[in-house]
């Protein structure tokens, strides 16, 4: 159950739109099913009042949308940012991807978002309605009686290991700000590191072989904001998506993770949108964990303007050979 | 202001004066000293060996207690303060030590407490200017030599109290009380410390150097924060009286009992 209600957000959006602070609002509206809430752009109070939703399925990170939306307006864009979204917001500012002056950012607290896969596992298929009641979600399905599941039990993985309830950027905050959390988000990475090379290979082959190259992970990623992605660029020598035995078919995920290394805020959107449920965040988290262990703690987006670890160095940095050993043996 | 207070064993016995005047002065300065419950002896010296765990646990317990109450942990005996501050630093910086200590204590502790000597509390939290305002009986004309010894200042990277070679904190307090501080070169050299037990001659040589130097510089009285320093300086025949700084403080604040 979210601490801030949909009504509060609607009221805030209408107020800012009406008093001319902003001319457009990034928000959520219902999709085909109650649980597939989709991002939406609102420009009128009426639309907001009728369509704006906010519930436990509003996981989408809007930061990336600001690049396009700020370019379209002379006024400001209203954006609602959960704590984790604010990190992406800062990272994009660091990279000069949008004009801060054109954004009115409202920080909203977040109790963690629900994972529909987990909900379905708990309540079954054919969901017709989901209602938040206290610490529970009450789920109505076509086939069964209403069922109550605890929010905590259906929390998305990224929320279970939430790294921060603190907003690192905003113009206005609704509700109370939280703290940075000492989370155990690297546990899964450590588990993999503790395996043998063969076991790791088997694990990843099993996961990555499911990839259908739909590009959803890239398209949703707030760090993947290139004007033109190298994988879409015929001049880059790596585009080749039609051929099954191509470079990018195998290397896409490694290169993608490398390109966002040191810039990825670990928002977890890649894994959320993957239709094949590949745990892509485990690639990004490996880089984050290595960066922390090799070069000192670094959280992308914690501070706008900070110097990312891959565009920085010290003369005493770890050698690659030692890094591989350290990366594999930290927890082995 | 409420702070946690760690008096230490000597303040309950041979150095009752030090304790008494700390409490009296604190009262005047609106500081409430909440004595740590069931505190145990700090051990007198900080064993620098990283694998020495048990002897530092009593300090950790006191620190943890203060942290729980979100209070500054204040001590007034130089030795206790040194041991506690160094222990706290080790808890913050030495992961292995921290891990091993936490195996012995009930609630996890990672060096969260803030440790201050009573002198630091007066300077940084109360302010010497505020102390000066409360002076009833100025020490005007009194030439006072501050004796720091070792433990208040060193190792400076941990103690972070003052410049280890040219400290001013006690001198500034003396000035605030209206007295005239006397600077002399041996004020931060060792009195001989615990060597007095085994090799009194060695302690005598150290102590005499200090007291002679203070006397030559025209001091009328020496102040210290350490019972062992006071013992060594006095035992080895200081020409000038040695008192605890809190005694002088209490005198200036007008709360010293006349004998």
């Amino acid at each position, binding site marked *: 159950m979210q601490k801030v209600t949909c009504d509060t957000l609607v009221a805030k959006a209408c107020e800012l739109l009406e008093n001319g602070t902003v001319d457009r609002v990034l928000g959520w509206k219902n999709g085909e099913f109650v649980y597939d809430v989709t991002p939406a752009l609102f420009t009128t109070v009426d639309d907001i009042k009728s369509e704006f939703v906010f519930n436990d399925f509003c996981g989408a990170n809007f930061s990336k949308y600001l690049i396009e939306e700020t370019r379209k307006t002379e006024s400001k864009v209203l954006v609602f940012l959960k704590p984790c979204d604010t990190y992406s917001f800062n990272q994009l500012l660091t990279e000069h991807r949008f004009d801060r002056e054109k954004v009115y950012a409202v920080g909203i607290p977040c109790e963690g978002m629900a994972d529909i896969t987990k909900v379905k596992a708990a309540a079954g298929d054919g969901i017709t309605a989901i209602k938040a009641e206290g610490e529970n979600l009450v789920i109505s399905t076509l086939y069964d009686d209403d069922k109550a599941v605890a929010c905590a039990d259906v929390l998305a993985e990224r929320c279970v290991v939430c790294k921060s309830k603190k907003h690192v950027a905003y113009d206005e905050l609704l509700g109370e700000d939280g703290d940075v959390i000492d989370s155990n988000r690297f546990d899964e990475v450590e588990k*993999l590191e503790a395996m043998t*090379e063969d076991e790791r290979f088997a694990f990843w082959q099993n996961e990555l072989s499911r990839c259908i190259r739909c590009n959803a992970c890239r398209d949703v990623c707030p760090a993947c904001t290139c004007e033109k992605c190298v994988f879409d660029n015929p001049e880059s020598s790596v585009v080749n998506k039609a051929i099954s035995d191509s470079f990018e078919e195998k290397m896409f995920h490694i290169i993608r993770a490398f390109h966002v290394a040191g810039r990825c805020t670990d928002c977890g959107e890649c894994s959320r949108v993957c239709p094949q449920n590949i745990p892509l965040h485990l690639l990004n988290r490996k880089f984050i964990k290595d960066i922390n262990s090799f070069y000192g703690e670094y959280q992308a987006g914690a501070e706008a303007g900070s110097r990312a670890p891959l565009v920085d160095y010290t003369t005493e940095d*770890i050698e690659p050979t030692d*890094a*591989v050993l350290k*990366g594999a043996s930290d927890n082995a | 202001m409420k702070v946690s207070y760690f008096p230490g064993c000597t303040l309950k016995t041979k150095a009752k004066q030090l304790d008494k005047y700390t409490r009296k002065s604190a009262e005047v300065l609106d500081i409430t000293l909440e004595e740590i419950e069931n505190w145990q002896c700090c051990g007198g010296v900080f064993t620098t060996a990283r694998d020495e765990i048990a002897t530092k646990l009593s300090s950790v317990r006191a620190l943890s207690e203060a942290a729980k109450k979100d209070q500054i942990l204040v001590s007034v005996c130089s030795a206790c303060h040194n041991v506690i501050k160094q222990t706290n630093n080790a808890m913050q910086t030495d992961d292995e030590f921290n891990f091993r200590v936490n195996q012995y204590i009930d609630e996890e502790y990672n060096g969260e407490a803030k440790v201050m000597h009573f002198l630091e509390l007066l300077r940084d939290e109360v302010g010497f200017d505020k102390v000066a305002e409360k002076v009833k009986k100025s020490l005007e004309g009194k030439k006072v030599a501050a004796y720091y010894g070792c433990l208040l200042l060193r190792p400076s990277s941990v103690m972070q109290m003052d410049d280890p070679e040219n400290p001013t904190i006690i001198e500034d307090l003396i000035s605030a009380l209206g007295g005239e501080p006397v600077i002399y070169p041996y004020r931060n050299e060792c009195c001989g410390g615990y060597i007095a037990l085994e090799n009194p001659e060695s302690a005598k040589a150290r102590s005499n150097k200090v007291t002679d130097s203070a006397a030559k510089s025209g001091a009328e009285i020496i102040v210290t924060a350490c019972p062992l320093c006071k013992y060594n300086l006095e035992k080895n025949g200081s020409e000038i009286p040695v008192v605890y700084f809190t005694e002088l403080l209490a005198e200036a604040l007008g709360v010293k009992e006349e004998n």
Partner: protein
Amino acid sequence: MQINGEFQPKIVAFCCNWCSYAGADLAGNNRLAYPENVKIIKVPCSCRVNPMFILRAFQRGADGVILCGCHPGDCHYTSGNYYTRRRMALLFSMLNYLGIEKERTRVEWVSAAEGAKFAQTMNEFTEAVAALGENKRLEDLRCKK
């Protein structure tokens, strides 16, 4: 590649122009033999080497990729190899995380005066890669057999 029934690994070596390429030349001047499996590509600085080049080499059948640059602190461009060091530390650690044998990738600092080191490094690296056999894993990462 198999020659006379013996596995012959393909090795790509990226060498920076100022130190390591000159080190390789010195190995030649001194007639210090190393396996012909090693083929050198000249880059201005080790920091020109994009992880994509390395993965491309593996994808096209290389069995081992080695990167040589000036020693840290001696970069002709002052800081290029420091960036290389960070990039490759992370990339190699990631490849190993995916189950790719760590012996297939290497960074070595070779100065223009270290002809012997260049030859020795190439001997060792080729031997290590040969011991692993053909590089299948990067090929197979997305194809379950």
